[in-house]
């Protein structure tokens, strides 16, 4: 129980992870598990396999187990009021990681640690606007972008699309000529890109919602006898190791980072919350962007 937890000085945290759907996510999980061990926090971990109902169940079970703090990375933004209400009644503080929830009652959670997907899209768009001239590879005065969306309807896919579109609308030269889902996978990215290469003439830029789809697109572009990064510019989001390697090799032109290494920050916040200290409502993780040069520099000590 929470008193016991306070007595012996150790904190029990229940963490409900989304799943293990990508390399990014497993890096996130590893970061949390390792940081918990370092911080001496007893971590109860569960994997919802991308299902909201599973996550709700886990959180309920954490409430029943009377953990000291609950953290989770919501599968969806909506639909958390009921279970968070229960946590509140049981006086267990809740920390959100990575993705926000959509609720009017902000007292339901203590804080949010994570990235802002819309902003990631905006950063990608901004780079394109800034480099519009160079990105018009075929020099016809129009920058034709094809977009590889994430899983249809998922929050990162929606937000990265939105942020990107918002920014590029400021430049009338830049147009999205085709957009299709590649389901966040390399195979999906490759197959969709193959189709685009045949059906959509004059592609200047590929904007992929994650590195994996971008890497798939690179394969397709190579197979079509073109040079990725040169004949077609590529922008992606995430900055996982494979993506950074391709960026350093000049096959990708720009990556917006979305860091999975939230573990340390999370444990920090958890300790403070349990100790009754004040924490800010919003902790946006420090995220940067990478150009090929920066990538080459950062690559050697990249963990994931």
């Amino acid at each position, binding site marked *: 129980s929470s008193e016991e937890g306070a007595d012996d000085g150790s904190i029990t945290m229940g963490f409900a992870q989304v799943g293990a759907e990508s390399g990014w996510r497993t890096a996130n999980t590893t970061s949390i598990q390792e940081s918990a061990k370092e911080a001496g926090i007893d971590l109860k971990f569960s994997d919802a396999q991308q299902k909201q109902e599973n996550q709700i169940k886990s959180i309920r079970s954490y409430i029943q187990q009377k953990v000291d703090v609950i953290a989770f990375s919501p599968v969806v933004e909506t639909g958390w009021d009921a279970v968070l209400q229960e946590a509140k009644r049981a006086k267990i503080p809740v920390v959100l990681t990575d993705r926000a929830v959509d609720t009017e009652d902000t007292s339901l959670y203590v804080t949010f640690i994570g990235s802002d997907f819309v902003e990631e899209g905006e950063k990608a768009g901004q780079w394109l606007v800034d480099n519009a001239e160079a990105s018009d590879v075929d020099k016809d005065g129009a920058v034709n972008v094809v977009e590889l969306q994430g899983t249809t309807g998922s929050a990162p896919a929606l937000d990265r699309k939105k942020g990107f579109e918002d920014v590029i609308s400021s430049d009338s030269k830049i147009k999205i000529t*085709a*957009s299709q889902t590649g389901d966040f996978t390399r195979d999906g990215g490759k197959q969709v890109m193959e189709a685009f290469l*045949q059906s959509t003439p004059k592609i200047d830029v590929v904007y992929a919602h994650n590195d994996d789809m971008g890497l798939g697109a690179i394969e397709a572009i190579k197979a079509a006898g073109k040079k990725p990064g040169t004949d077609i510019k590529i922008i992606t989001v995430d900055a996982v190791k494979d993506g950074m390697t391709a960026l350093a090799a000049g096959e990708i032109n720009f990556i917006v980072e979305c860091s999975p290494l939230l573990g340390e920050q999370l444990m920090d916040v958890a300790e403070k919350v349990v100790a009754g200290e004040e924490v800010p409502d919003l902790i946006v993780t420090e995220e940067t962007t990478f150009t090929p040069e920066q990538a080459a520099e950062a690559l050697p000590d990249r963990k994931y």
Partner: protein
Amino acid sequence: MPEPTRTRAVKELGARAVSHRLFWPLAALGTLLAINLIATPTFFNVRIQDGHLYGSLVDIVRNGAPVLLVAIGMTLVIATRGIDLSVGAVAAIAGAVACVYIVKGPADGAAGTAIVAISMALAVCVALGLWNGFLVAVVGIQPIIATLVLMVAGRGIAMLVTGGQITTVNNDAFAALASGHLLTLPVAALIALGVFAVTQIVVRRTALGLLIESVGINPEASRLAGVRSRTIIWTVYVFAALCAGMAGLIIAANTHSVNANSLGLWIELDAILAVVIGGTSLAGGRFSLTGTLVGAMLIATLTRTIPNIGIPAEANYLFKALVVVIVCLLQSPKARAVLQRRREPIPTSREEAVV
């Protein structure tokens, strides 16, 4: 009098073509291709680039290879009244084993390493197939549940192998499985078509096909007739796993990487769909590998059509549902009977006019 005779002969030929089992799937395939051609006039163009064929049609056959492979194995399993839901997970395991071996292996770029990795992955698949076959044939668990076990656990095993990471390999020999070319043709397509041809020959030139069908049609009668049903069931599950493994390797090679979570996800549904579109009944018994080939190509073409004609991502599923329903309706004898009854009055009235 030659004129009417000829028209009648043509009519009869047409009627026979229409009543052929594969007429409607082929017609649907043709229609899809035609739609693509209208959307992209260059759709059928195939050119030689760097000494190999390049074009949408080539892509379709190459990208359709994994589904075709899985569907070939699935056809035989279904013919014995079974079903194998675990093929997606098995594909993921195969990819994981091969990629992890290559990365951890002594010389990760060498062709030898790739060969060892591939053999190892396929050996693991045989073991998984034996496991499925054991549950179905020996323990006597319903196939759908027996293979559900591996479907759920298998992806976990694949993640265990990769440690949850996307494992990327740099091995040209391995990559050649998917993107390599032999005699200007993509290796992946050659593998799938090769497996198709060999299976077709083995199944129809030996008695295996007949025995598989007999087990599927009436298990008890085949037991009494002395058919070694257990061995046959076991064999088809091993074969299905092996096919799934090859599919997994091709998918992994296609992107030089394995993502245990997404590799081959839902491929079992596509494969089953291909089998059924090809005219093999899920109730077991008579099967048609050629039908499966057509079905798999139909699905590959469908996948290609969506981005090609610019269907928005949100409408993918609607489009897929539509195509599936139409193809299946066209194939159903009952639906065709309804259609024909509707069509009948037209020729009659014309004949009346002539007389």
